């Protein structure tokens, strides 16, 4: 993860790295407001979206980002069912390498798969989500939105609410928020929380945490967690942890509501909240393109061999 050629997680980005990436993203977000939303920065470069998990949103976001930078984009989706009988991950990687691609954007259900790719390939590897491990571009785009909405982030409080244990979004988000000086709290039943972490407060009672937060980050709850016995029913979960208008009233007036998508309306978040002015979900999507442009540009653009982001 130390290599400067790849973006595997946010661990090795310090505050200055993050801020410079967000500044780059800001200038790209201005490009995206122009009538001709395209710059020639990565002309002649080839980016492959290698997706072992279905994800229309993230893949499209990376595809648009690369195209806005004039890179050539290939999409390669591998269904989970064909993994066992199909070509090995290593052979797929070596095939891409042999085609001379410049960057691989990888989404994989197994933690560490991007790390493996970074060991096998000379190309840049960008982690677009691996297992329960990391989702660094999501964390960066979330910070981009928060900077837009809240200005200075130092000292602000963000709560990740819901299935923190299985969430790569929360895992990378917590690290990124801490490194820009935000306070992180977690709200979830004990069965959906990771082990105790230093500097992170834990609340099982959402209503007690609500008034403390500048940001409420709602995580997607998956039905299979109920089947694993981590909570008794979606109804009970909804009663205890859904962000609805009633709860929103207890929150700070300027609270920002976020969600990585896709939302389960009526479960972790009510439809009214999803469309309330506090909600930043569409801003997250727009920021996604600009931030991913910044990441691609930082890794692939500029002079050969120059150091870029972590």
């Amino acid at each position, binding site marked *: *993860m130390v290599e400067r050629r790849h973006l595997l997680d946010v661990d090795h980005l310090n505050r200055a790295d993050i801020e410079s990436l967000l500044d780059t993203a800001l200038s790209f977000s201005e490009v995206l407001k122009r009538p001709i939303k395209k710059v020639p920065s990565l002309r002649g470069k080839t980016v492959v979206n290698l997706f072992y998990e279905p994800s229309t949103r993230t893949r499209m976001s990376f595809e648009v980002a690369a195209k806005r930078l004039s890179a050539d984009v290939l999409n390669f989706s591998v269904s989970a069912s064909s*993994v066992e009988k199909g070509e*090995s*991950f*290593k052979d797929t990687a070596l095939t891409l390498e042999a085609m001379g691609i410049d960057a691989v954007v990888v989404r*994989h*259900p*197994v*933690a*560490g*798969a991007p*790390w*493996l790719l970074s060991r096998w390939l000379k190309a840049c590897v960008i982690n677009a989500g*691996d*297992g*329960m*491990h*990391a989702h660094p571009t999501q964390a960066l785009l979330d910070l981009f939105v928060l900077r837009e909405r809240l200005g200075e982030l130092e000292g602000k409080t963000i709560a990740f609410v819901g299935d923190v244990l299985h969430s*790569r979004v929360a*895992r990378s988000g917590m690290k990124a928020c801490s490194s820009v000086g935000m306070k992180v709290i977690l709200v979830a039943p004990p069965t959906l929380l*990771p*082990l105790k*972490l230093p500097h992170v407060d834990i609340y099982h009672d959402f209503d007690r945490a609500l008034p403390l937060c500048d940001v409420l980050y709602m995580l997607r709850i998956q039905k299979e967690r109920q089947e694993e016995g981590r909570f008794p029913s979606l109804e009970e979960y909804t009663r205890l942890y859904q962000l609805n208008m009633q709860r929103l009233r207890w929150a700070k007036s300027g609270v920002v509501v976020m969600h990585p998508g896709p939302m389960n309306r009526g479960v972790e978040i009510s439809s009214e909240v999803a469309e309330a002015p506090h909600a930043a979900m569409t801003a997250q999507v727009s920021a996604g393109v600009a931030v991913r442009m910044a990441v691609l540009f930082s890794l692939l653009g500029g002079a050969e061999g120059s150091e870029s982001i972590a």
Partner: protein
Amino acid sequence: MRALPELLIKGARVIDPFRGVDEKLDVLVSRGRISKLGRRIAAEGREVIEAAGMVLSPGFLDLHVHLREPGREDAESLESGLSAALRGGFTAVCCMPNTQPPLDNAPLVEALHHKARGLRLADLFPVGCISRGRQGRELAEMALMHFSDAAVRAFSDDGDGVTDSGLMRRAMEYATAFGGVIVSHPEDPYLSAHGQVNEGSVSQRLGLRGITPLAEEVMVARDLLLAEATDCRLHLAHVSTERSVRMIREAKERGVPVSAEATPHHLLLSEEDIESYDTAYKVNPPLRSLHDLEALREGLRDGTIDAIATDHAPHTLEEKEREFDYAPFGVVGMESAFPVLYSGLVVQGHLSLERLLELLTSGPARVLGLEAPAYGEGIVEGARADLVLLQLDKEWVLDAFSFASKGRNCPFHGRSVRGGIFCTIKNGAVFHGPLREKGG
């Protein structure tokens, strides 16, 4: 391999845990047996191994190896596995029955036993299944395996815990009829489900699913209760946690007929060594915390743990070189065991050489109730010449690609170690260890 009519091992420090011998002696081997011990035996034209500065021990016994035959001979075979044993100093090994098909019947264990004898490598003591087909539902024909030519004395569904407590109780009761040892793979699959590494700081950091120590401890506790109630000889395989060690210690104090083994990797590596997603460190039970590692070492010193066993588990490169969740659990261990244990425990002052040798010879023999002539005659005139000569001062680098095993999945690959196998002598025949291959 060279069958020698007469061989003189000169000047070694002879340490025999079976007889409490520790002195400098010359050892003469004739026609596969130790024919003479003495302070000074003249060479008289015999083949001589100059062993001054080396240690001569009875050949080691490994209670826990996976030789993959029948079914996965691409990963290991009797021939490659038993050659690896000799290269690692083991003159006898117990192979686990989780083969394809599993070793759950007398004809199969007999066939394996006879094939191994024909190879004239290390001795093989097959472990039989507890349950038919290793399915955990009904008992396998344990007594028929016991009374077969293979003389199976230990039974295990290793690879999986026996989750049906009623079946485990019956297995223990039944095994007392013929003195069988029940070897428990203590793992509650409901607690370990989908886990990849120890549940703790590393599972957290790497985003891998954790295996809680409780998955082991719950079953250790259950099996200790069952052994106490049935008075069956219970052996706990690859113990890895502090609480397991503590429960075993307490059970032994109460007189429960229990023994336990620990592996070199659990004694020398912890979850802290898993910096990245290198599947060479993926093993079950998982590498635990430093706190657990210390407790295991204390267990070696105070006798709570009776034996060191490698849980040698070869896998092909292509099986291991893939996404972490998809790679199989297991590390190879027979050819790295002594050098890593000596370097990591003895040289570092955590364990005496004498205790280490007990844990590799007389300790495991007691676990199985093995006695001469099957194993453990010791270094005495008339005994079978099953010996290992250890060179302790040599610094060298472990290379998994030089192993006789087909497995390369060794977490110690590339490590600098001190001490190793100079040669192993089995029935009087000399098999070179890595240090003799290197030209001494």
